[in-house]
């Protein structure tokens, strides 16, 4: 029989417990919590990073929300998010389905090669894509589309050129990641279900619609979540791609924030932008969650 511990020993145990988990909390409070709180504080100050801070109330929020450039950045963020996420998830699903089928050989090879872009350095990717997507008509992408009789596109300066180039970069980098997640999801679906369905005479299409997709729901929700939040925080790709002039065609909200803080030394408005983005992400996540739940509920009713 187990000995009942004295109160003193219990305390000792929990002390060890806290000691063991403390490194995370210490690091988190220095590098995570403190900056978050400081950002909230800064969003009410006017500060150039070097001089004295000055309390300005809600002025920073007014400035940011009244700035057409901020709204342009918001628009860019959502457009690029849509352009990169939607095709990415659909294609990732198809790739995962193909990898999971019995027809494809050398699965390990494909899995690794799809995932490889995800572990390359973003900056390197952006530099390489910057070389592919250049304005000049001799650039690789422009020569390629020239083969099909298209006019060269100003990838670096035109409204849609910049967005397509950045979306292509995100697509290339993240499609493999989502493929692997979907593949894991597909593999966790028990074969029994498919066998049972086959015995009942279900077609392949019916199997996908009534077994694969419902069983994959949590995984799909997860990828949509991660991709949405990821695209709202899009930063390095456009920064390296459009360079320090930060032309408005490719400026995302985080890039707008960066520009405020580190090229214009306006840390107050930059923090205000961060706070606004924080709430936007919360709203997006909640909406995501509600839609996902609704989908789940209606499915239950139908089946």
């Amino acid at each position, binding site marked *: 029989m187990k000995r009942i511990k004295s109160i003193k020993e219990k305390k000792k145990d929990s002390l060890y417990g806290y000691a063991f988990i403390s490194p995370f909390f210490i690091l988190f409070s220095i590098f995570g919590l403190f900056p978050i709180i400081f950002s909230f504080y800064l969003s009410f100050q006017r500060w150039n990073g070097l001089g004295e801070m000055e309390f300005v109330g809600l002025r920073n929020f007014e400035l940011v929300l009244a700035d057409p450039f901020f709204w342009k950045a918001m628009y860019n963020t959502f457009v690029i998010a849509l352009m990169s996420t939607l095709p990415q998830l659909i294609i990732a699903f198809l790739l995962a389905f193909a990898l999971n089928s019995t027809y494809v050989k050398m699965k390990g090879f494909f899995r690794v090669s799809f995932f490889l872009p995800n572990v390359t350095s973003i900056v390197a990717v952006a530099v390489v894509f910057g070389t592919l997507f*250049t304005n000049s008509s001799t650039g690789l992408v422009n020569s390629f589309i020239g083969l099909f009789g298209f006019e060269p596109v100003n990838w670096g300066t035109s409204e849609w050129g910049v967005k397509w180039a950045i979306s292509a970069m995100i697509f290339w980098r993240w499609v493999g990641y989502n493929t692997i997640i979907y593949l894991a999801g597909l593999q966790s679906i028990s074969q029994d279900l498919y066998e049972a369905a086959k015995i009942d005479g279900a077609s392949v299409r019916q199997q996908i619609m009534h077994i694969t997709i419902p069983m994959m729901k949590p995984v799909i929700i997860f990828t949509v979540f991660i991709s949405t939040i990821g695209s709202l925080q899009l930063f390095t790709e456009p920064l390296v791609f459009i360079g320090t002039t930060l032309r408005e065609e490719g400026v995302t909200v985080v890039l707008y924030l960066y520009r405020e803080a580190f090229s214009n030394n306006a840390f107050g408005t930059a923090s205000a932008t961060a706070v606004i983005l924080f709430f936007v992400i919360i709203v997006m996540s909640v909406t995501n969650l509600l839609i996902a739940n609704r989908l789940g509920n209606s499915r239950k009713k139908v089946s």
Partner: protein
Amino acid sequence: MKKNLYLFITLVLTFFLTACNNGQESSGSSSVNQDDSPEKVELTFWAFGSTGYDELIEEYESMNEHVAITLQNAALADHHDSLFTTISAGSGAPDITMIELGFIEQYKEVPDRFYNLFDFGAKDIKDSFLDWKWDVGEIVDEDYLIGLPTDIGPTAMVYRTDVFEEAGLPSDPEQAAKLFETWEDFRKQAKIITESTGKPVTDSVTQLYNALRDQAPEQYFNTDNELIIESSPYIKEAYDYTVTLVADGVVGDIAAWTPEWGTAMDEGSFATLLAPSWMLGVVKGNAPDASGMWSIMTLPEGAGNWGGSYLAIPSQSEHPEEAYKFMEWLTSSENQLKSFESMGLFPSTPETYEQPGFLEYSDEYFGGINTAEIYAEAAEQVKSVYLGPNHSIANNEIIVALDNVLNEGGDPEKEWEDAIKRMKAQLDRQ
């Protein structure tokens, strides 16, 4: 439960305090060392790029045995990021730091973060430096010197001799220079070059615009930091000239610092390049096989300055006198000659231009020309100009406008007005 929470907090605090203690101990022990008879001084020195200062430091240390200098070298952007952070945080800054021209204005807004170099006798050496260079490091109204000049970036123009020959222009620098005396000449030759070779006369709108902008005696702001480009003619003239050449179709679209740009330099895909003194190293690096293909001449209508640095002592330093002594030595005309000979840092001390090592200089890559002499001439022509802390905000918008005119077929006047609107919106919130 509550007790546990207290325990947790104490634990976290102890962790913090021990961490802090460690820091103090190590700095404490180094001060003990300083008790040795000729007081030992350790200085940290932050620099960026290839300065060759490590050799000079060794020389200085052997002459002053009580001084030990640690040089920390980083890339330009990283260097200035770290500097900004340490200055802003109030700890961790070095004893001596290099500050590039584009970054010094923001520190002039907060002079108390740096020592006033006039307190250590910098007034005595003022005359040995170029005036326009010196002025930028000084806050005139307050009699406060933040930065001691190091190198400068006077501008000239390098050109491809093969492209010139193809266009039927003389490739010899002396004869060619006669055809490029004014910007009107430049436009005329540009048309000839592009018509006969199909190559743009210059790589990008930015470079062309910069060349003109940097010749102006005033730019975006007056000394009260008011935006003056609507009343001052210079920036508008530079802008108008640039868009005229864009309309002529003679300006290229090859962004600087891209791989394409390097290739274009190597292959000679454009005819001329705005080249501050340090750009020669960039050309050689990008086009190692094009030796003899590039030559050099002065820009039409004078010269400007692009880049160059200063040395400053953050007020966190505990040894400002020793730091200043080293800085004064490092920026002397003899040592600036050494930095020039080893790494091509162009001296800000006109005395250096008279020294034999400088007069006999010649560059095989540029056809054996004394490039140093051309830049020395350019350096003496540069005018003192006030940039102000918001220079890059204003400049960025003009570059965007020019890019729009070149690539998106924007109307120059409308783009100019939009740029001013964007500038004002941004400046309002500074």
